[in-house]
């Protein structure tokens, strides 16, 4: 896969939806392209995050530590970005990522991602928009859950 195909993939990531192509190319270029084989760990809960993962191919299981051991809570697949929270603010990884099958991933380091946001404010705006949408959804889910809990 070359830069061009990576840009195609990046365009499908909701976070980068409104960003023009040359900037996506730059993002792709400053990212590292890595492969993961099934069962390999991308990151572990609790460790310090130094990069975000953009999944180009394959999918990964999201696991969280519970008293009974690690438990799968979700799965992330192609064209999604994970781990961006940990590189935007200094919090430890909130979950563990394990490759569910062979994966192709673009990793962008924290330093570079922040540099890119600083350089191009429109990317920051896009990121902010996506995070706000996510917050809105989470809040709604939470409200739903509360209603559900009090309703029965």
């Amino acid at each position, binding site marked *: 896969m070359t830069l061009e195909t*990576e840009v195609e993939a990046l365009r499908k990531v909701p976070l980068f939806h409104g960003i023009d192509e040359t900037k996506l190319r730059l993002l792709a270029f400053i990212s590292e392209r890595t492969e993961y084989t099934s069962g390999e760990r991308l990151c572990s809960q609790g460790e310090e995050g130094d990069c975000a993962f953009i999944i180009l191919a394959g999918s990964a299981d999201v696991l969280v530590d519970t008293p009974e051991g690690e438990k799968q809570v979700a799965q992330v697949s192609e064209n999604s970005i994970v781990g961006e929270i940990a590189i935007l603010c200094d919090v430890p990884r909130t979950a563990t990522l394990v490759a569910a099958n062979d994966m192709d991933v673009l990793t962008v380091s924290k330093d570079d991602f922040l540099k*890119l946001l600083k350089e191009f404010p429109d990317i920051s705006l896009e990121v902010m928009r996506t995070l706000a949408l996510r917050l809105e959804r989470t809040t709604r889910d939470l409200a739903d859950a509360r209603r559900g809990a009090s309703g029965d």
Partner: protein
Amino acid sequence: MVTVLTYPVVYFLLELPKLIVNDAVQGDNFPRNVFGFDFDQIPYLVLLCCTFLGLVVVSNGLKFYLNVYKGRLGERMLRRLRFELFQRVLRFRLPHFRKVSSGEIIPMITSEVEDVGGYIGEAFALPAYQGGMLIVQLGFIFMQDPLLGLAAVSSYPIQGYVIPMLQKKVILLSRKRVKNVRVIADKVGESITGVAEIHANDAAAWHSADISDRLYENFKIRYEIFNRKFLIKFLNNFMNQLTPFFFYLIGGYLVIQGNLSIGALLAVIAAYKDLAGPWKLLLSFYQMTADVSVKYQTVVENFDPPDIHDTERLTADDDVKLDGDVKFERVSFSGGAAGQEVMDISLTVPAGSSSAIVGPDGSGRSEVLQLAAGLVSASSGKVLIGDHDLDKLTDSTLGREIAYVGGAVHVWTGTIRDNLYYGLRHRPLVPPERSAEEKKKYKRRVNEANQTKNPVYDLAAEWNDFAAAGVNNDAELDEKALELLETVRLDNDIYRLGLQSRLDPSMNDAFAEKILNVRKSLAGRIANEPKLSGLVELWNRDSFNASASLAENLFFAVPSDPEITMDQVPELEEVKKFLAETGFDQKLQQIGQKIAETMLELFANVSGDSGLLGSYSFINQDELPEFERIVRIAKSGQQRPGLTDADRSRLTGLAFKLVPARHRLGVMTDDLRDEVIEARKKFLESVVKSGDSFVAFDPDVYLPPLTIEDNLLFGRARVDRRDARRRIDNVIRTIVEETGLRHPIIYAGFGYHVGVSGSRLSAGQRRRIALVRGLLKNAKITILDDIATGLTEDDKTLRSALREVLSEKTFLYGTSNAEIAAEFDQRFVLDQGRMTDTG
């Protein structure tokens, strides 16, 4: 002696032309009888002329001998003087170095005394030779005619009086200049040492202005000097030209009157011509004497502080054993500033015990420890070890019986090995074997050293004092050093440095062989373990290595000279030829152009200060406009003004740096890969095999230009696998440990060059190396100040390991932390130079 021999020769040289003209040319009554032989006029003329020629040869031969002799004498005296000055520097007491800097001392020893040395040679020969010459020549002129003689010397009184007056001013100016140059040297030296500070504080402008000011001062002084110098020259020349005027006038008159022969006049004029030389030289000798004596004083006063140590302290080779307690008897000391004082301290550290000297910086703690090491002397009271007053002992005792490692350690420019064994290199121990030819050379060296009162120590001898370190040979010494490196936990660092260093396989065949074995077992493991196979791409002649650069893939070899970087490779003649033959020059330029285009497109809108460009692009910010120009020209397809050769190799260089797996620019097609693999075979045939500028990748050969680590792995960690580098490093480490190669690699790390004053090591590494250097000495008394004073687990273990190593010895440990001090047998607490507590 030789000088006096020349006088008659010169006299005859003057006399002969007169004889030739008056007697041979104008004379009669031939034949003449010379030494019993008869000569006609023509043979007589020939005889006289030949004698003249012979005397010229003899006279110049004598001059040559004299010049060589005085040159040698001057150089010898210079060497002696320089050495003497250097030795004086070593004899300075430590506090003196707070007042003088290397920047000032260096020019004094190197350039400033140069004139003095040159002068010493002249000092004996010149007055005797030139003075004598002058008298002979003047005598000759006077003998021809006293009047002419008076004319010849008429200008001397004026020259002898006026010119020295002018000269005095010049000397004063040169003295000022010398001092100014010294300051410049000091400032430049300081700027070099503190260059990081300059950049960190943006102080370049300030330093530039400072130097510029000093240079202007220098300019002013020099301008003044040469103004005066040329005035002196003018006067001199004028006076010298004035005298011939008298000759022609007086001499011509005398000849016409018939009181003087033409021959005599000619000879007088010839003599006068010669006269100018010695007179000038004598004058300049006088000037030089004045000048040099000023310079000598300016230099020497700096090397003669009143409290300088005796030479004896430096050169003595006595070996007093320092057994017994360390005792301070009412010791006071002042370092010349607040916080560097010790007042009226008495303490006793029993032999074989460990004591902590406790106190914050400025409490006198460091001073007490330096007093105990004999590095500084008490201003009143006595520091004793056993019955010996430290102030009365020489370096040879203090330096061997006491190990001192202070807070500010110094690491010497050289290898780690040099630094570790530095404390054992007191005197040459075993002279090296020398062949007949070398023996002769060495004899001459010793002879010269003796003539100049320099030491005759042989630098090529074995200096490491095995006995002091408690070992028998080099191998055991290495082992001992390794043991101590493990104690201070520096072994892992040295191991890593060893992996990064290059090895000359011709020096150690067996080691290279072992590395090749590890390479094989590593390759086997990678082939068999699927987990590992994904992490590395090994060098394989028939496949493309996507984690390596295009250049490495194309050549499948590395330049034999590790100093040659990839940027320089396109410039190599054989590479150029190969690229042209295979048509790869065009291809690489196209690839380079494509890369440059992409870079320009990606980074055109990125501001320079974002830092994005630096870390990812092949091109840095400064090169962007340059490549913009190249791409513009290349795109336009114009013939003129086309790309220059330099532009082309820039593009080629860019293509060479491409690592396909990292830079996914889509330029590496499958066809291109195949072509590269094809071409690499040709390169192997045409370049690698025919010359020795490249070494091919070969799984069965140790590659000297690569580091030990690269030789072990023989491939590249994949750039598209996360942490591949770290994971494969772990694998290498395990294999290395299994095969017992760790120690040889650490020893290879001993050869690592630490850079200027250890600048290639971290501060912690420098301290630990100094610590091992101190411990290796195996001294009876070990003094550590401000070493491992942290409360971390690491420092704690180090401290207990140190106490373990030094358990039989007297151990003084300086710290500001009372908690740490509790680990020692006894404690002495200092506060503001006074002892407040013992226990």
